[in-house]
């Protein structure tokens, strides 16, 4: 059963993202633990796919590091199973890995069996190891029926992304399918840390203000101040990926010890979490003005 509702209590949720296995499994484990110590309320654990079409350069490079480190869906599930943290976990990956899990081979290989197993085996295994939900950036609501069905069967949540370009008609389609939280894409483009937060955020949040799922904003948040402004704009949570992956990348490039990188991640997590809380405490007053 999904524990995602527990991430969104009275305080705004801080949801960091890391690619599992970047740059290797043992380091990844320490990094995730550091983020939880730093105040994470939920973690998006990336399962790298070879064609990450929604990702900017930072996460693309993380995907390459992780894949060359040998991460596979089974290694990923084992990682999650071994993880000893007490926050909900969301699996972020691309649809083909979900669609193909459990196949003996990727090709017809002469046997003529080219059919895909579909999403059920993947979701079943994810539920076993303690995953609470999914974000699948290349799966719009229109194509999600099979995955939604499997998620319902195993009691997991399916998070959808709402973009600045999403039309009102499509908002309704997404509203029918979404559970756990809705991922509000703060601006157009791909993932990546930005120097400032987009104005589109408040507008996007206003459009879905009456939805009964929590609203978490991602894409471009890289500082405590960003976090504060996003929460002020009405977000129930903030999602931060590239700004954290940058720290991992810096560790790899400069050959820093794992513990040192973990410290930097913990510190960054605290900054982001405090930013989110700072604004939350202030917001009643803001409302009053």
């Amino acid at each position, binding site marked *: 059963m999904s524990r995602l509702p527990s991430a969104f209590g009275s305080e705004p949720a801080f949801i960091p993202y890391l690619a599992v296995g970047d740059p290797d499994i043992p380091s990844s484990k320490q990094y995730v633990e550091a983020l939880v110590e730093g105040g994470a309320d939920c973690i998006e654990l990336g399962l790298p796919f070879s064609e990450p079409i929604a*990702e900017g350069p930072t996460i693309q490079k993380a995907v390459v590091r992780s894949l060359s480190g040998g991460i596979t*869906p089974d290694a990923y599930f084992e990682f999650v199973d071994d993880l000893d943290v007490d926050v909900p976990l969301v699996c972020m990956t691309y649809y083909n890995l979900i669609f193909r899990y459990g196949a003996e081979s990727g*090709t017809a290989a002469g046997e003529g069996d*080219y059919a*895909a197993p579909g999403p059920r085996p993947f979701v079943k295994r994810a539920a076993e190891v303690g995953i609470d939900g999914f974000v699948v950036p*290349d799966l719009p609501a229109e*194509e999600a029926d099979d995955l939604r069905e499997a998620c319902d069967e195993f009691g997991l949540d399916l998070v959808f992304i709402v973009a*600045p*370009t999403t039309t009102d008609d499509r908002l309704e389609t997404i509203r029918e399918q979404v559970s756990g939280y809705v991922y509000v894409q703060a601006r157009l483009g791909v993932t990546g840390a930005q120097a400032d937060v987009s104005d589109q955020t408040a507008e996007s949040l206003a459009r879905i203000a009456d939805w009964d799922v929590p609203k978490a904003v991602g894409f471009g948040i890289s500082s405590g101040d960003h976090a504060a402004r996003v929460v002020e704009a009405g977000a129930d949570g903030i999602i931060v990926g590239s700004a954290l992956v940058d720290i991992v990348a810096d560790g790899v490039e400069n050959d820093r010890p794992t513990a040192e990188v973990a410290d930097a991640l913990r510190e960054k997590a605290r900054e982001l979490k405090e930013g989110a809380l700072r604004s939350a405490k202030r917001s009643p007053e803001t409302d009053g003005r």
Partner: protein
Amino acid sequence: MSSDSSADGKFGEYGGQYVPEALMPAIEELRDAYERYVLENEDGFVDEFRQRLGQFGGRPTPLQHAEHLSARYDREVYLKREDLVHGGAHKLNNALGQVLLAKYMGKERIVAETGAGQHGTATAMAAAHLDMPCEIYMGETDIQRQRPNVFRMRINGADLNPVTAGRGTLKEAISETMRDWATNVDDTHYVVGSVVGPAPFPEMVREFQSVISEEVRKQAKEQFGTLPDSVVACAGGGSNTMGAFAEFVDSEARSASGRSSGRSPREDDEDVSLLAVEAGGSSLAVDEEEGVAPNSASLSTGGQGVLHGARTKVLQDEWGQIVESHSVSAGLDYAGVGPELAYLVDEDRVSAVNVGDDAALEAFHRLSQEEGIIPALESSHALAYVEKVLGPERSAATGAADADAEVDDEAAELLGDRIVINLSGRGDKDLETVIEETDKRDIPNAPDMSEFAGGL
């Protein structure tokens, strides 16, 4: 106008729209524009497109009787001369259609991916012709091996963005172009280069390319009074393939959602065998451990998967990670294939066959010497398949009454007496590759170039 109720863009279970949410509205806008302008000729779009294809593109292209190949195989062999389209390949049919459509849609900027550079050059030409700013994404590896096309694009005024991710070839270029589109979706149209990607691209690109089979149909009736027995085309992503096949596939089989341009089935459609020739590379095996396929034969060996916006057949490892494909022909070197082709192969309407690098190189030299036409390495695969089934070596071997010979007889039967080979492009762009690759192998019919080697 067709409603959205059945507008799922699927071919059986293939196709669909597996793209980031931010792109969905652009795709809906494109579907609407496609239906209005392309299918319903609003504002005279189709008339203008056809007029420009004729005057700028040089259409119609001949259906040429190939005398020496006909004598060699003792069949009537015809070449559909897409190599004579402006730019040297069928690619302009689609690029011109999409750039013109972007103009009708009020878009202000064109982006496109390119592998071998053929689609990039066609898009750059069309964009210059129609006065649209144009940016092309091309993998770094491809930039190195396709210099002449890089220069052509720049000379036509397009900006070129090198893609360094992965192996730096077509699939990385597609991913990067999608990212650009996701960032600039408001004013930008993405000219997808083949019958791949999210709906409506596979259907729309096929519509623009179907001028090939429309002409073949008409020319065949004029020249020999009936339809050909078979149409043979190479298949990478599959745009020349679908273009050459479209008018021989009835519309019901084309799209399970019944949303095609609505041509009603003709009774003689099914009489024409359709053969999609894939690049067998150096071997049909896939090394799942290494993540490498030494071929690009997605229809023959791929498993169902989701790649670049569509469910189709893809070359992937046991986990679903996309593997690196290979072919001596850069234009066929892709790990996926158009969803409609995957569907038509499953429905047994199209036969998926393949030939390897060596056979394609031999066919390249054969056509150059015997018919005076230097074919693209892509098209050489279609030529090589006919040689494989009907060539003298095969005839000499039929003494043996084994199972292979029976299969070969069936294949020969399928090709029939009148064979149309789609000569999708000319081979000038491939000369350096051909000379280099021929040198590495024992290609019996290749000319000796050794005395000139130093000068190349």
